[in-house]
């Protein structure tokens, strides 16, 4: 195979694996935004907290990684419900500034608390995946990255089915569509709000679990949440498939920019490329690829 094509494919593939993590975090944004109208700036922090839960369950309590993973999911679902109950519930009906800022406050607090309790040390996650890379037709990929991509696509299928088939999923769609009408036909909005936060926290934890397999465990991994904004905005803030596709595209763009433009323009292009894309999307197509355009009528 031509070497430049091989490099390109390599960059694409590793971009897809990191993009998968972005997609999972972005999925959390979209779920909460769709159902409750709140843009959760603490999604990256929820991901970090989830990753810490699974890490400490494995290293401290010596659980098998699969048990630890499931337990971490349950704990973070509970955390999501608690957060919704304590912080978001009093904010219903408040102006958008207050609602946005309260999630920013939550983000700062969560990160501070994790660093306070578990410290700033960088840990290696005891990865359940075999460390030898997988070779796919001339392109190599780490097993952990490979499974991240698989998990991302699995989540897409699960969530599309969830929203199509399950009663809770349909109720969530109803609430997103029209809160008052949903209430009239007997859907408890309060319950839907807590369920959305629980699911968002769970998805974030899944993302966190896969990310620490690729990277390390440190409080700073919450920056992934910031990278997931561009993903959510690119896909359209209220579209589930959009979040996944947006995440993958942002991951690929970032990696390609890092691979090709960094040499030309000096370092740091990789980190800011996603934000440049974000601003461009907002200027050209503010409702993203699959988002529903809001029309204000006077």
């Amino acid at each position, binding site marked *: 195979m031509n070497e430049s094509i091989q490099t390109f494919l390599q960059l694409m593939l590793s971009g897809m694996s990191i993009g998968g993590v972005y997609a999972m975090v972005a999925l959390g944004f979209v779920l909460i935004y769709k159902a409750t109208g709140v843009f959760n700036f603490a999604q990256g922090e929820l991901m970090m907290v989830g990753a810490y839960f699974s890490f400490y369950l494995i290293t401290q309590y010596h659980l098998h990684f699969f048990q630890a993973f499931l337990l971490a999911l349950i704990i973070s679902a509970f955390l999501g419900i608690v957060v919704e109950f304590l912080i978001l519930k009093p904010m219903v009906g408040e102006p958008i*500034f207050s609602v*946005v800022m*309260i999630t920013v406050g939550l983000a700062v607090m969560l990160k*501070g608390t994790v660093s306070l309790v578990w410290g700033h040390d960088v840990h290696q996650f005891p990865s359940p995946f075999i460390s030898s890379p997988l070779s796919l037709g001339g392109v190599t990929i780490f097993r952990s990255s490979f499974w991240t991509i698989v998990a991302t696509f699995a989540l897409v299928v699960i969530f599309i089915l969830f929203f199509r088939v399950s009663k809770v999923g349909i109720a969530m769609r109803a609430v997103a569509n029209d809160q008052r009408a949903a209430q009239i036909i007997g859907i408890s909005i309060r319950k839907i709000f807590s369920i959305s936060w629980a699911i968002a926290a769970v998805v974030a934890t899944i993302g966190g679990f896969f990310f620490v397999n690729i990277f390390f465990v440190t409080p700073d991994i919450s920056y992934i949440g910031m990278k997931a904004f561009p993903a959510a905005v690119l896909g359209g803030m209220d579209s589930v498939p959009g979040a996944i596709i947006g995440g993958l595209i942002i991951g690929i763009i970032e990696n390609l920019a890092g691979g090709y433009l960094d040499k030309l323009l000096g370092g740091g292009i990789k980190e800011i490329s996603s934000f440049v894309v*974000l601003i461009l999307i907002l200027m050209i197509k*503010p409702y993203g690829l699959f988002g529903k355009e809001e029309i204000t009528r006077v």
Partner: protein
Amino acid sequence: MINGNFKTNYEDEIKIFQTTFVKFWLVILFVGLIIFPLVADRYFIYLCNLCGIAIIGALGLNILTGYTGQISLGHAGFLAIGGYTSAILSTKLGIPFWLAMPLSGIMAAMAGMIVAIPSLRLKGLYIAITTFAFGFIVDHLIIHWESMTNGPSGITAPRPSLGVFVFDSDKSYYFIIIVMVILATGFARNLFRSRVGRALIAIRDRDIAAEIIGINLTKYKIQAFSISSFYAGIAGSLMAHYFDVITFENFTLMLSIQYLAMIIVGGVGSILGSIYGAIFITLLPELIRLLTDLFRQEYPSLTTRFADLKSVTFGLIIIIFLIFGPKGLYGVWRDIKVYWKNWPFTY
């Protein structure tokens, strides 16, 4: 007998100094500010200077976020542009502080206009995301544009001088900051007595209605962004010349959040509130430091975890104020005042 502050015409309502009582206390405050550096020790003057810089920045953010309703998560980016412009101009080109400071304000204002462009199409949340991305891009530019910014090691800007006199002590710098704070407060107070200020408030309250009564949204939104970032640029420039060295670490997302915390704690959409909030949030870390020092014997690990304690407290304060006191300290103060004015009656 007039037993209250009743207005009988519009001129009365928009007066800056509403009563003789207010005038009297302002004079006392002014005299106090002049005497303060002569009696206080160096540490308190230093804290006071930090508060002054924060007040200018918070006023700027309140003009944009509190009065115009455009949420900015990138205020630190504008401060950084101001600070670095001032530092680069004075170190590389030898431009004196007195020229570099306004230039850095103008530079930040121009950046503000650029950021305003996407905000013309977007509302609420999307502006928060745009400004957030902007702050990030500025931070990365500072780190990687090494030929200009010295990269991660930062720049040391000289202290300002006038003839042979160098403002190198905290005490002398205090006077520069105080003058700037008074100018900034006066301008902001006057802004909202003018057509521009009222237009901004109208945009915040209902942009469509504002447009219908003939307010040019494009023009006023760009104006709001540029005034706000001009303030931030000035604050950044004052920071650059005051600190021994400025690096990208001075201007992270945490700083933007800190400024937002100031206006939330002080009072969104209030000049006095920005001042209260700036002072409160600037002194809060010092209070935490004092407390950790007190408990050092019992919990020696606390002092190393100072930064984490700080962020937990900031987060908590933002959440608590938003839930329990959305009007901020200014609102609390006003409620208390009204309560005692009418005491023993409820109203």
